[in-house]
């Protein structure tokens, strides 16, 4: 899922400096699961914004709402239910949600309440780690299911590099060298010959280096 983290409240208070009616808008998708922007976090942020503005002597109203998702037009359309009650939206969705509101509500001010961080998972409660870079050309079948694009600091295709020591990455002693993990795993799976193949120079256009990406599923468009 997409992992996000709330921005400091002071930063958000500054964004809405000139606004008087604010809709704090959550999303029941990824940001609910990673506890960054679901209904509970909306309640907390709305309370903090009311407190922050009161501290500055500003009169403003803050209302709360949460959409099923902020990355689909049909749900953005349902923002109509709050028409007239806000002059700015503070979106607690990932950056996709903020963009969708900006795309579909041309006259509505929208501000991001979270920093969208990465695609990841939660190995233990309260911790999220990056697992996928969304590079658009998956090679996990070659690497034992472990991603060197996301999890190698250098995104090497033929690792490990010379900086790997005792299974750890040279950037930090707590970061596992994913290429060490890949080699170990392929050996366990009796597939270490896979590592004898030299990966060719990679075409990064699918990773966004060729501009914004698009998926067009003709079987689904009507």
């Amino acid at each position, binding site marked *: 899922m997409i992992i996000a983290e709330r921005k*400091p409240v002071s930063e958000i208070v500054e964004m809405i400096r000139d606004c008087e009616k604010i809709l704090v808008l959550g999303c029941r998708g990824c940001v609910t699961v990673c506890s960054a922007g679901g209904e509970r976090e909306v309640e907390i942020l709305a309370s903090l914004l009311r407190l922050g503005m009161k*501290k500055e002597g500003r009169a403003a109203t803050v209302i709360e709402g949460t959409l099923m998702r902020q990355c689909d037009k049909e749900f953005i359309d349902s923002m109509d239910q709050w028409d007239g009650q806000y002059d700015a939206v503070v979106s607690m969705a990932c950056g996709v949600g903020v963009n969708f509101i900006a795309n579909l509500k041309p006259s509505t001010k929208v501000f991001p309440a979270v920093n969208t961080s990465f695609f990841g998972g939660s190995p233990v409660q309260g911790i999220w780690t990056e697992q996928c870079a969304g590079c658009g050309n998956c090679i996990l079948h070659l690497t034992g299911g472990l991603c060197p694009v996301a999890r190698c600091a250098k995104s090497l295709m033929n690792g490990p590099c010379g900086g790997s020591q005792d299974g750890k990455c040279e950037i930090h002693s707590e970061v596992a060298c994913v290429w060490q993990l890949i080699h170990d795993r392929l050996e366990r799976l009796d597939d270490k010959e896979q590592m004898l193949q030299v990966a060719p120079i990679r075409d990064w256009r699918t990773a966004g280096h060729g501009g914004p990406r698009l998926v067009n599923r003709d079987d689904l468009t009507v």
Partner: protein
Amino acid sequence: MSDFIPDIRAFCCHYTSQQTCAEENTLSNSGFPKNITLTRVVCTGKLQVSTLLKAFEEGADGVYVVGCPLDKCHNVKGSERAAKRVGAVKKALQELAVEAGRIEMFHQERGFHPEFIAVAQKMDKRIRAFGPSPFKGEEQ
């Protein structure tokens, strides 16, 4: 000398802080400040961050939570969760340039004991020193 009397809200564990069950006069006769409002909760682990923030929205100058010792929580991890949530509110207060000490977590043994009164007096003294909550805006 300021005549400021802080509005302090205390959320106390049903199991640990049995003083919350005492008659009001019994508490105040023991030295418990009258300006502290007690709310007894089934477990401090049930307290949400939003509940603590709401207390500030409603005009509290200070808030504190009294729960079980970390290794003796009746619900195993309730008071640990509460401490984490108090920590989250402290962080948010700091982000708003407000004294983090306006909210505090205390862990106390089960039963009637003088420490319950002592932490109440400690918070009362601390919040009096801080002065009125900056969240009260024009009402100060």
